């Protein structure tokens, strides 16, 4: 089952397209990271998936074919929007009651236990909580709904490192222990490898990379060799060339079994490095299925 499936999905705001020709399928059971620069269309894609926005073109379905925003979809998806909007004048306890009243399921004891664990006073107004506590409260509310899919829009952008660490730990616990599928957007690449096992890279409103992290890492290698020979390498598609004095580092779409040219060394690639390389090359793509072969012509590297 795919938790989110889009086909040629597009969204136009007034005169500019925030998202175009977006076709992807995110399978269930993953923590999927939606990565891209600011303005790439991450929030737009998430808003379409949770039914807050209507597509201009194409279609989006969730939780195995449900139309986004339909009652069953709302029931199964918990969404924590950017900057974790809460009613600032309501107490944490009131936010629990509110969410419980607005949903068919709500695990009140679990939510209370979690807030106690986090040291968030139930009687304090949401607006008086720290940024980290507000994010934790919003996440607690979302998870207590027992969703099948948890959607988080830039959940950690405003958090300090400790709060970020705690937040991600809870998300991962939910994903592993309760089997909640997670889709989170972020423009922070650090820690991506610890968090996500599925990557979607958006750039300029288009999907550039999509796939399981293991598969992506296994199908990409970094080749290090003399800078002078960098332009002559053509055996496998080159995503990005990084030159450091006499040496060049090529990110290529190759597996560990692919031959390495003489004078060159091959290394496995990290997820952050891979994402960065694609972000620097908006025309390169790594997509599953029939789209995979598209990038046989590596693009000229801009420096």
């Amino acid at each position, binding site marked *: 089952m795919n938790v989110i499936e889009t086909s040629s999905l597009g969204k136009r705001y007034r005169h500019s397209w925030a998202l175009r020709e977006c076709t992807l399928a995110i399978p269930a059971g993953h923590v999927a990271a939606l990565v891209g620069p600011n303005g790439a269309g991450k929030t737009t894609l998430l808003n379409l998936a949770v039914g*807050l926005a209507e597509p201009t073109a194409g279609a989006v379905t969730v939780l195995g074919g449900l139309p986004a925003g339909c*009652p069953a979809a709302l*029931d199964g998806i918990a969404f924590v*929007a950017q900057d974790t909007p809460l009613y600032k004048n309501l107490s944490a306890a009131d936010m629990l009651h509110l969410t419980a*009243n607005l949903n068919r399921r709500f695990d009140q004891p679990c939510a209370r236990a979690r807030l106690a664990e986090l040291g968030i006073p139930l009687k304090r107004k949401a607006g008086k909580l720290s940024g980290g506590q507000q994010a934790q409260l919003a996440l607690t509310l979302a998870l207590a709904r027992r969703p099948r899919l948890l959607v988080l829009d830039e959940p950690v952008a405003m958090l300090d490192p400790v709060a970020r660490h705690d937040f991600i730990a809870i998300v991962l616990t939910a994903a592993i222990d309760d089997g909640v599928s997670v889709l989170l957007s972020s423009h922070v690449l650090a820690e991506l490898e610890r968090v996500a096992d599925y990557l979607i890279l958006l750039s300029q409103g288009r999907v550039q990379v999509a796939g399981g992290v293991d598969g992506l890492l296994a199908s990409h290698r970094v080749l290090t060799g003399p800078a002078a020979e960098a332009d002559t390498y053509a055996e496998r598609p080159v995503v990005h060339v990084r030159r450091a004095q006499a040496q060049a580092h090529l990110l290529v779409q190759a597996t560990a079994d692919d031959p390495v040219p003489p004078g060159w060394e091959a290394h496995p690639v990290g997820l952050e490095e891979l994402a960065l390389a694609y972000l620097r090359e908006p025309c390169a793509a790594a997509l599953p299925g029939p789209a995979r072969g598209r990038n046989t012509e590596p693009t000229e590297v801009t420096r």
Partner: protein
Amino acid sequence: MTALTMPARPQHEARLRPVPWRRMAWVTWRQHRAALGGVAVFFGALAVYLWLSGLQVHHAYATACHPAGSLACAMNFTGRYGITAIFVSIFLQAAPALIGAFVGAPVLARELETGTFRYAWTQGFGRWRWALAKLVLLAVAVAAAAGAFSALYSWYDQPFFAAGYAIPFSTRLFDLGEVAFAAWTLAAFAIGALAGMLIRRVVPAIAATLAVYAGLALATGLWLREHYMAPLLTSKLNLPGSAWIVSQWYTRSGKFAFPARGSQIVSALSQFCSSPNATPAQCLSQHGYTQWSSYQPGSRFWPFQWIEGGWLVGLSVLLIAATVWLVRRRAA
């Protein structure tokens, strides 16, 4: 349905029963209790004032006004309390507008302005049901409060009608009637809710609500209300005191001469009527003029209240439906 194939989910969840409507009662109360409390305090304080001064008014009427046209009545009742009653009635004209602006406009504008709609509209309750439940509950609450208050107000005002000091059809009093006041409050709330949804910011929505409400109330009072039913026409000079005179004019030999106000009647009066003993109408009739009056009789007060209440409730239902429709289709 695809959800049936979901593993590890009990089957009964596949056919979703919606979250019960009644849950919105707590949600609405908890989120808007400050606004509803404000309405209660506003009407409550005014009610205490009306009750206390109403007791004085009734007492003064009972002691001084036998008969109602007596000098003692004019001195000790209307002269003493009449001006205050006029100020109270004028002040109350603003009450529906204030409720529309400060209860109606923020309902959706605040959600949109602070971004909390992203929370509210992604909960299992569903966004259009959420908007409908909230708006209907709040609309009924403010309209009921206004209706209860206007019942007290009509008790307060009753001696002034009895003394012939004011008529129920007076522009400043008609929309404080039991039906019209609740309906105007409802309409103001609905205007506020739609303005908030369209403008998406609290302060501009409040300003827009006040402006639209004032325009609608003025247009109704000045032009629309007199057309609810065809006015009666008479050439009698002694109209009943409770009649609402829509217009008056003079004819001579069956032809229109001049309206009852304006420069022509002034010149006619100065020409024929130097004697101070007769009213202008009596004097002019002695000189061959006939005064015609089109008027709404006082007995039409309740039909007019129901007509005004009816179209205002209809308008409010339309506005609330439009607001809910906008919530349903609005792209974030």
